[in-house]
């Protein structure tokens, strides 16, 4: 790892630990970690910058979800009628490819752009503006884990975090009650597996303990399994790459994670083969699914698709690999960046500050777009986000997602993440039909990636135990 990366990671870890410890203390506030001026700017009334109220300023903003910034922009315009922002919505891939092309071409890039955290390494040296001078005073106010880490490269802070994907477990109260089981007693995946088998027996195979999906069956079974495997490996502290960019897809954490997914399938307690989005919704509707473990932002899915189940869902932290182990992981998340082609970066950052670095801006964002707030800790502390969610039987949705975010491992994606994901998916059928062991399959995939990236090949691990 480059020296600057080490320092940046150490700084982030220290700040994050500081934030957590402050939060852990009774009555402590994360705002104690920043200057009184910054704390006032975050929680107090917004004070506009008169320097930016003079000239006419035009800017563009690209994203796949512009409703929230549009709403905040309406408020922003009350202070800055001279600033005009054009919001362009397009598909996530279009945002990525068009931004990359514009940055490479040196012309045509938007002033501000929303990018998924997992793409960030592809853009780290691509012409994003270094926001460090503006962002450093706010750095202690962000959650640990990949969320913030994925906006930082070589010690430079390049983005303002928007949302994250802390994973929690959603469960169906009535299903467990019917069979006299208590899901909240589950602490480890071994417990989960055992209760799943019990549930399967009690329901004559009608109820599946675990249901997995990435939403509307995008990519089908393999993507669902890849998703599960990825968050399970994260709990063991690993992604497809280490923080130096070395391929580690065939390490013990990844093998164990894949073995656990296979164990769920072999035990007959999971369903991750729905053929279509309609089949997925039907699964949730007909009381045959007991739990799913997904990113918090996925809470929209049952709310939107099975609204009549409101109140019947409960929430808990995802099970750990061992007692006292990590019960958090992350999937997804995105941030807003200012490009070097932006002619008015100060104005752009001012808009981002108005929107994303104020408690009220975050609350307004939630009210417009239901973003799951786990990133900006002053908002997390806010009373508004301490409320229970009626759809989930009054369970403290935000507290649980925040806890998951706090426990999630810091994993930096690689520029070759998409390649790794595709190679993993391609190898899955062989693993599922038993023609190749997880150790060998993941080693084959990892070595193919290593060849592409010019890294030395490694032998496969042998007989990795599922549980220690």
């Amino acid at each position, binding site marked *: 790892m480059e020296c600057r990366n080490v320092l940046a990671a150490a700084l982030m870890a220290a700040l994050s630990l500081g934030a957590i410890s402050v939060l852990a203390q009774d009555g402590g506030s994360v705002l104690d970690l920043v200057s009184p001026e910054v704390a006032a700017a975050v929680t107090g009334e917004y004070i506009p910058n008169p320097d930016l109220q003079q000239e006419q300023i035009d800017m563009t903003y690209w994203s796949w979800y512009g409703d929230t910034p549009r709403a905040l922009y309406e408020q922003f315009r009350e202070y800055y009628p001279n600033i005009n922002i054009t919001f362009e919505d397009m598909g996530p*891939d279009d945002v990525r*490819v068009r931004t*990359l092309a514009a*940055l*490479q071409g040196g012309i045509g890039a938007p002033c501000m752009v929303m990018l998924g955290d997992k793409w960030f*390494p*592809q*853009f780290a*040296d*691509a*012409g994003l503006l270094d926001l460090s001078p503006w962002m450093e005073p706010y750095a202690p106010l962000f959650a640990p884990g990949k969320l913030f880490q994925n906006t930082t490269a070589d010690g430079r802070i390049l983005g303002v975090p928007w949302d994250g994907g802390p994973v929690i477990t959603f469960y169906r109260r009535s299903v467990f009650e019917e069979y006299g089981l208590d899901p909240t007693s589950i602490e480890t995946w071994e417990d989960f597996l055992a209760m799943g088998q019990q549930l399967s027996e009690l329901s004559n195979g009608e109820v599946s303990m675990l249901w997995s999906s990435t939403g509307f*069956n*995008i*990519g*089908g*079974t*393999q*993507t669902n399994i890849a998703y599960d495997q990825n968050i399970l490996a994260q709990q063991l502290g690993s992604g497809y790459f280490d923080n130096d960019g070395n391929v580690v897809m065939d390490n013990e954490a990844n093998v164990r994670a894949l073995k656990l997914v296979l164990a769920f399938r072999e035990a007959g307690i999971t369903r991750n*083969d*729905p*053929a*279509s989005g*309609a*089949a997925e919704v*039907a699964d949730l509707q007909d009381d045959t699914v007991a739990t799913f473990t997904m990113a918090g932002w996925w809470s929209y899915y049952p709310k939107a698709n099975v609204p009549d189940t409101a109140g019947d869902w409960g929430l808990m932290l995802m099970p750990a690999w061992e007692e006292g182990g990590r019960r958090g992981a992350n999937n997804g998340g995105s941030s807003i960046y200012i490009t070097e082609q932006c002619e008015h970066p100060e104005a752009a950052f001012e808009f981002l500050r108005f929107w994303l670095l104020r408690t009220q801006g975050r609350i307004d964002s939630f009210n417009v777009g239901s973003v799951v707030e786990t990133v900006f800790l002053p908002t997390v502390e806010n009373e508004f986000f301490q409320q229970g969610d009626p759809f989930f039987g009054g369970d403290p949705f935000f507290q649980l997602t925040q806890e998951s975010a706090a426990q999630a491992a810091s994993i930096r994606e690689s*520029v*070759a993440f*998409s*390649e790794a994901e*595709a*190679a993993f*998916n*391609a190898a*899955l*059928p*062989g693993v599922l039909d038993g023609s190749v062991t997880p150790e060998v399959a993941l080693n084959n995939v990892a070595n*193919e990636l290593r*060849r*592409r990236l*010019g890294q030395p090949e490694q032998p496969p691990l042998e007989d990795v135990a599922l549980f220690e």
Partner: protein
Amino acid sequence: MGAQVGSVPSATQPELRTARRQWTLFTVKRSPYLFIFPFYFIFIVFNLYPILSSFLLSFTNQRGIRPGDFVGLDNYIFLLNDDSFWQAVGNTLKVWVLVVPALAFGSLALAIIVNQRWLAGRYTFRLMIFSPVVVSLVVAGTMFLVLLDPDYGPLARLLAPFGIRGINLTTDQWASIPVIALVTIWRWIGWNMVIMLAALQTIPIEISEAALVDGASSWQRFRYITLPLMRPVIIFIMILSTIGTFNQFDEPFILFGRNAGPGQSALMLGPFIYRTNFDFLNFGYGSAVAYVVTVVVFLASVAQYWISERTRADRD
């Protein structure tokens, strides 16, 4: 100073003739270039330059936006050992085998049928067969996904009483290629039929009538008159279909997404090139793959033409 009105010296006749000749020379010799300049300017900037640029890129290891280093033929050598590339080649060839003959001879058969004067409503049939061409592929893809849905699709419901389960495109690897071929044929056969129909209608009726007088059967007239005269069009369609199949992107991508179906069973060369370049951002390697595919398509087209010409020469 100040020139008097009307004092501008008039040009002499020889000077006028020279000027006119020069203008004529200009208009005759240079104006064609001016007329074609816009096309070639656009072609050079937006076609030729990217083509040459990506050729140079194929000798680098550029990933993402960082300029790559020169790696010689490494990308081309790596390609030979890339399992995903060979899987894409294999899948593309399978689709080619299913699609190209079906498009060439199926469209000919349809054209012959809808060209029959005795066929009532032949214009309606032509319209119906052609209509998939104007349907957006996104709509068509969604339609086929609904049709094939193993839980709710009409095909699954039809098969259910016989104990046959529907196709699950997210798990049934064997189904990927046939489904791509089916959608491709459905979509393009009407287009090819129109080309065949136009060619059929250029065959002089007198030839067929003369053969009829000589006692030739319907099959003999088709075999020895229609088919030889249609040969250039059939070859044309086969070459176009070959190029289309090797560059095919829409159908596999819309039906199976970026993961290319279970176990990449729907991965074809078009999506493979796209994925390598714009998903993986592996521009150096992606350019090398694109060049190899281009060369293969060119050779395949030449081979088709050569085989056809040789067959005709042997027959003659």
